């Protein structure tokens, strides 16, 4: 927020009462607003257990619910290539395969009869375990949560259930065209074998044994790789005592330095085409690698993305969607990721007959960031949109906590949100214009998913066309 001058405060205060009596404004720019009530960013209490587990606590007593999330530094990024899908299977069977005191079915019965939930999901290098419980059940559900994390029984029958679900995901992986586009773009930009882009196959899923799950859990899930956040209706001392009782005697794991994910060293060029005939559109991404989130240009890039593609007033939406009517879905921008380069992309889906027109429009708008640099008005509107909505980044305790967990997990400064606001405020217009160099049309690889015929221009007019084979391999051992 920009500081209010004493004069502005006076004006605002004078408007407070007679507001309703005033004639209605002729335009929105005539409206004058009272100041927003002071509201500070809630800061969770941070406790580090002796075993290295980080615990964040942020009570909120409005509703009698408690929610907790544990981020474990383990996930599919670290799967062995021949067993891709191991982390995902392990997380699911931790949840469904029971604990020392309860079978998997008993865990389900207990949770669902108490209107509670525990779920595990994996994303890249994170296994996220989340808990939601009514206040009265929190202690019991937290103890169960600790068992699921620390002492999962990893029942072999539940591995087969999870495996059949993952196999079906492989079988269905070519149904959603945007899903294909995102998957193949990742493989093109990071490399097909990069752990950032790799996807399981029938063979890698079938290679996973129950022993692999046990070994995975023993190697990966340790308190010094966990950050736990709790929000909702709890008393601080009681919750902390519960956490200490449930996790305090958990022993540290061996020293572990996460390997940096391998990324292809050469930049892909040309067109990569995945043929899919049962669609009436082409699904297109133009892209190259982007930045890490701790890049000094991050704030400039955020403002640039806002004016380029993040609203209906942005260049990409106005030109490609609203004016040309070429697409319903059009999006993009400079990509950032927490600990590796993100993907800087522009994408759309457009009817097959306008595939070339769509690609051309994306190229024109990307180049336009250089040839028609963002105006002062565009930049200030974008900056203002970020700052004026800043309160929505901390308007609920769960939102605050989820962000803090990620900051902890990736080792970012804990006051990141405050720094972010300052960064957005201080970024100069020239820095925003310079940030356009992070989106380079000449460096784009072009990925297209769609029918082989019927396009307005041959894809070869955009460079050498490399076919992508997305067909499903035969599943030799599968089938019922």
């Amino acid at each position, binding site marked *: 927020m920009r500081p209010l001058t004493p004069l502005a405060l006076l004006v605002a205060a004078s408007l407070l009462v007679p*507001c*309703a*009596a005033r004639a*209605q*404004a*002729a335009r*929105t720019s005539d*409206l004058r*607003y*009272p100041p*927003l*009530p002071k*509201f500070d960013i*809630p800061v969770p209490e941070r406790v580090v257990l002796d075993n290295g587990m980080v615990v964040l606590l942020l009570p909120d*007593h*409005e*509703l*009698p*619910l408690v929610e907790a999330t544990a981020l474990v530094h383990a996930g599919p990024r670290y799967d062995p290539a021949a067993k891709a899908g191991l982390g995902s299977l392990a997380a699911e069977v931790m949840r*469904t395969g029971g604990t020392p005191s309860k079978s998997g079915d008993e865990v*389900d019965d207990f949770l*669902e009869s*108490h*209107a*509670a939930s525990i779920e595990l999901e994996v994303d890249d290098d994170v296994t996220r375990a989340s808990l939601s419980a009514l206040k*009265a059940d929190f202690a019991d559900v937290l103890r169960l949560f600790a068992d699921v994390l620390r002492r999962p029984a990893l029942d072999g029958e539940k591995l087969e*259930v999870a495996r*059949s*679900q993952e*196999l079906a995901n492989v*079988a269905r992986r070519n*149904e*959603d065209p945007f899903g294909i586009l995102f998957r193949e773009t990742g493989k093109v930009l990071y490399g097909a074998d990069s752990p950032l882009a790799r996807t399981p196959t029938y063979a890698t899923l079938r290679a996973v044994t129950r022993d692999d799950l046990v070994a995975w859990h023993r190697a990966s899930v340790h308190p010094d790789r966990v950050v736990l956040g709790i929000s909702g209706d709890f008393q601080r001392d009681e919750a902390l005592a519960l956490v200490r009782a449930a996790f305090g005697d958990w022993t540290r794991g061996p020293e572990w330095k996460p390997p940096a994910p391998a990324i292809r060293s050469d930049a892909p060029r040309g067109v990569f085409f995945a043929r899919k005939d*049962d669609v*009436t*559109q082409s699904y297109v991404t133009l892209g190259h690698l982007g930045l890490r989130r701790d890049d000094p240009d991050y704030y400039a890039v955020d403002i640039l993305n806002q004016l380029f593609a993040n*609203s*209906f*007033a*942005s260049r990409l939406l106005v030109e490609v969607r*609203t*004016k040309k*009517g070429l*697409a*319903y*879905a059009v999006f993009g921008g400079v990509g950032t990721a927490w600990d590796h380069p993100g993907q800087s992309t522009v994408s759309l*889906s457009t*009817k097959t007959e306008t595939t070339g027109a769509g690609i051309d429009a994306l190229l024109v708008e990307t180049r336009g960031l250089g040839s028609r640099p963002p105006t002062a008005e565009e930049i200030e*509107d974008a900056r203002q*949109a970020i700052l*004026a*909505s800043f*309160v*929505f980044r901390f*308007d*609920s305790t769960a939102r605050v906590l989820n962000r803090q967990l990620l900051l902890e997990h990736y080792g970012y400064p804990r006051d990141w949100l405050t720094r972010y606001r300052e960064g957005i405020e201080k970024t100069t217009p020239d820095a925003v214009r310079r940030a356009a160099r992070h989106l380079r049309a000449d460096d784009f690889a072009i990925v297209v998913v769609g029918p082989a015929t019927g396009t307005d221009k041959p894809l070869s007019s955009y460079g050498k066309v490399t076919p992508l084979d997305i067909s499903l391999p035969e*599943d030799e051992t*599968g*089938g*019922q």
Partner: protein
Amino acid sequence: MRKHALALLAASLLAALAPSPPLAAQDLAALEGHMTVHRLANGWTFLILERPRAPVFSFTTVVDAGSAQEVPGITGLAHMFEHMAFKGGPTIGTTDYASETAALEKVEAAYQAYQTERLSPRPDPKKLATLLAAFQAEQRKAAAFVVQGDLDRILSTEGGVDLNATTGADETVYFYSLPANKVELFAFVESERFFHPVFREFYEERDVVREERRMRVESQPVGRLVEQLITTAFQYHPYQQPGIGTPSDLQSISITDAKAFFDTYYAPSSMTTAIVGDVHAATLVPILEKYFGRIPARAPAPGLRTVEPPQIAERIVLMEDPGQPLYVEGFHKPAQTDADQPVYDAIDDILSRGRTSRLYRSLVRDGQLAVDVGSFSGFPGGKYPNLWAAYAFPGVGVTNEKVQAALRKEIERLRSEDVTDEELARFRARSRGDLLRSLESNAGLSRSLAEYHRLFGDWRDLFRYLDRLQKVTKADIRRVAASTFTPANRTVAMIVHAEQ
């Protein structure tokens, strides 16, 4: 983050978990102390819930009109109008409203001339080309006045987030959130949208919606199958029509059609807006009067005459498709205001919710026949008699027939034997938990309040509905299952995998 009436209400929901007394009247009264219902003279109803947790508020406007108000020839129109509502108004989105209005009249005249020739028995290609060129020339003239994205720019630079809208079969829903000091901006923009609707860029937007149809329906196996399911299960009622519109209608609907739709169905008495957050009814109500009170009252929209006749023969859709197998079966059931709706909710809970459900345990856990199962009612809408449906995604190499047999066995059990005490208790506990969790976000709560008000005429039914859920008995479930799950009332839709 202060505690207030919602906390009191929540406490009573929780206390009720052990036995099941009805929601105590005094708790609802506590919430009512923070709720203001204000109906303007023109009929627009506002529900204001003061919740000073953070200096923000969310609103949801529900219009009691959706794609069920369409007839063949204008399908997709309710959704098109929703898109139009983002184009601004007389002072938003234009450089010169008067000149633009005149230009748009010419656009429409040119379009009607083109359309008349195009739909004539023997269109003359030459004449058609000339008329099309003339129409496009007028479009370009009108486009010169447009300030694209202005509505979004105005709201986002004042801190607006989550600006969006959806069109369903029964209703059209508009929503966003703003910092708490911007209530007058909300009143200005939202009243303008529906006081002076604009139809700028209508035909350009029609192309965008056509792309939306290609993306959501035509290029997804599930989208293709769902469209086949509704067009088959309903033979007469407008629920049979795709809300996004048919390809030919998306080539034909016009500004004239959209204006007529707005005039008929967007009367203020069809509008309910719920506002939840750090707002004060005492200061807000005069602002609402000032802005929304400008809109003249109009005749209420006519009711829908059409009633789907009882289904007397099973219907089956076999869709050969490159997609993997998918099995769905649907049954006709009463509207969601019917006394038996809570029974259908209980059936869904017991049959398909979570890892304890019957379908999960029999089809996914034990048989590994399916990898995902579910059921739901209120499809494609809920205001009129609608469908209850169950679906299963077969596992790799499993046929639809195997899944069908296993699914039918579970549906049949609901008819032939009582559900267990544990299942009923779990349903009751979860329905309390659901209501409690639905109170968490301002946006979600504003939508629930507005929708219950639209459907039942009183926001309190959001909370009363819980009591109705708690009263569902084993006998209710068997009675409803027996009358609903009959072969003649069934429509089956499945994807049969076929390589192209």
